[in-house]
């Protein structure tokens, strides 16, 4: 949405984007250089890496302020975006109120979300659906003004997080899919990339968040996209067996604990037709990260509302896919610095 943000809100959000950009683009690089000089042969296990960085950079102003500012910005996004959104609430509500759209939105007001949903994500006050304008707050305030220019998590300062989504969608091995499912569709950022790469395919997205789905529905209406959006757990989509021929997921599985990741992948196996493909994009496992980078990423677990990040980045996703029954399993880095990291597999024709 093109939010009619007012001067104070705009300038305050842009300031956060610049602070995040400076922390990630200057202070963190300075800290990385200090660590490389202090520890030329870093350890390989996560615990040793954390201890090593903490010890080597204990007195590094660049490191300590990079972390402080990154945490501050992550909190402050909502402190600033919520009042800025409230200031223009009528315009946002009008945009969210979709009368006609080529697709559909099916909400489930009585849905009981899984327990992990309540652990809080990304420091959102009240949780993912903690505010009725949260879709706009995250997408048009947080991403547009702060995370896109400043970087977030595995997306380094200066990288384009929308290009990375398109790159991942293009890792699906075919271009002639009939019906694509995205579990964890959220506000539809990856769905836009999927619709761009597969313009003739039907698209169905499921998510737990009603507010994110309302945002995605309004986006689809604005762009004339025929998206079928359903509020449902990705572990239990309610879709028929063998009803899609591509499952595409982006940065979903670092938000889910391992038992939920397995349940979701088993559901994806069920709804895929024989011969159908699955492509998953997320952050590369720690074993494919350099020591300092691994510690920076791991920090998100306790400090930026990513409760399942550590378990996700140590999970053997290819092994899990094979155990479920997928074949032709591949795992590899797609973009610079191994981000996004792709897991790609196929449901066998028979079995």
């Amino acid at each position, binding site marked *: 949405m093109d939010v009619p943000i*007012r001067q104070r809100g705009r*300038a305050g959000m842009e300031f956060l984007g610049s602070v995040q950009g400076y922390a990630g683009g200057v202070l963190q690089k300075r800290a990385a250089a200090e660590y490389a000089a202090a520890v030329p042969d870093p350890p390989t296990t996560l615990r040793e890496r954390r201890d090593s960085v903490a010890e080597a950079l204990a007195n590094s102003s660049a490191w300590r302020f990079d972390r402080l500012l990154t945490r501050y910005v992550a*909190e402050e996004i909502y402190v600033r975006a919520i009042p800025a959104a409230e200031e223009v609430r009528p315009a946002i509500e009008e945009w969210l109120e979709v009368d006609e759209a080529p697709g559909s939105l099916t909400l489930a007001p009585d849905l009981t979300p899984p327990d992990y949903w309540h652990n809080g994500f990304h420091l959102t006050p009240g949780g993912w659906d903690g505010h009725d304008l949260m879709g706009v707050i995250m997408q048009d305030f947080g991403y547009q003004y702060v995370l896109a220019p400043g970087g977030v998590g595995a997306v380094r300062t200066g990288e384009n997080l929308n290009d990375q989504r398109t790159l991942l969608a293009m890792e699906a091995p075919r271009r002639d899919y009939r019906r694509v499912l995205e579990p964890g569709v959220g506000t539809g950022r990856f769905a836009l990339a999927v619709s761009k790469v597969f313009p003739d395919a039907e698209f169905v997205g499921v998510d737990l968040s009603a507010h994110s789905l309302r945002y995605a529905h309004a986006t689809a209406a604005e762009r004339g996209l025929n998206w079928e959006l359903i509020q449902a757990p990705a572990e239990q989509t309610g879709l028929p067996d063998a009803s899609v021929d591509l499952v595409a997921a982006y940065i979903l599985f670092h938000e889910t604990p391992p038992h939920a990741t397995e349940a979701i992948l088993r559901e994806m196996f069920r709804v895929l037709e024989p011969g159908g493909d699955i492509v998953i994009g997320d952050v590369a496992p720690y074993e494919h990260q350099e020591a300092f980078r691994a510690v920076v990423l791991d920090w998100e677990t*306790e*400090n930026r509302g990513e409760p399942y990040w550590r378990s996700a980045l140590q999970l053997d996703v290819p092994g899990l896919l094979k155990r479920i029954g997928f074949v032709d399993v591949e795992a590899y880095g797609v973009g610079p610095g191994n981000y996004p990291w792709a897991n790609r597999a196929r449901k066998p024709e028979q079995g």
Partner: protein
Amino acid sequence: MSKSTHYLDNERLDDLARMVTELASEVWILRDRTMVLEHLLAEQGTVSQEALDELRPTGELLERLHAERSAFVERVFGAVLSQEERVQAALSR
């Protein structure tokens, strides 16, 4: 959600750094407002509060604001770097 730990030597030091950051933000918001005000006056010869609040910078003004903001943030938060690095940063602005 409140902050879960401290990032500098203790929580009070964190609080002070947060206050300084907030103050820097207020300075920037005012500076942005002044630049938008000057832009509107130069373009139209007059300005209303609504026009000032509703203007969405584009083109040359957007670029100028971005450059000024980047330099401002670099000066404020780059104060933690060494003198040599600050000289280099100042020369490159």
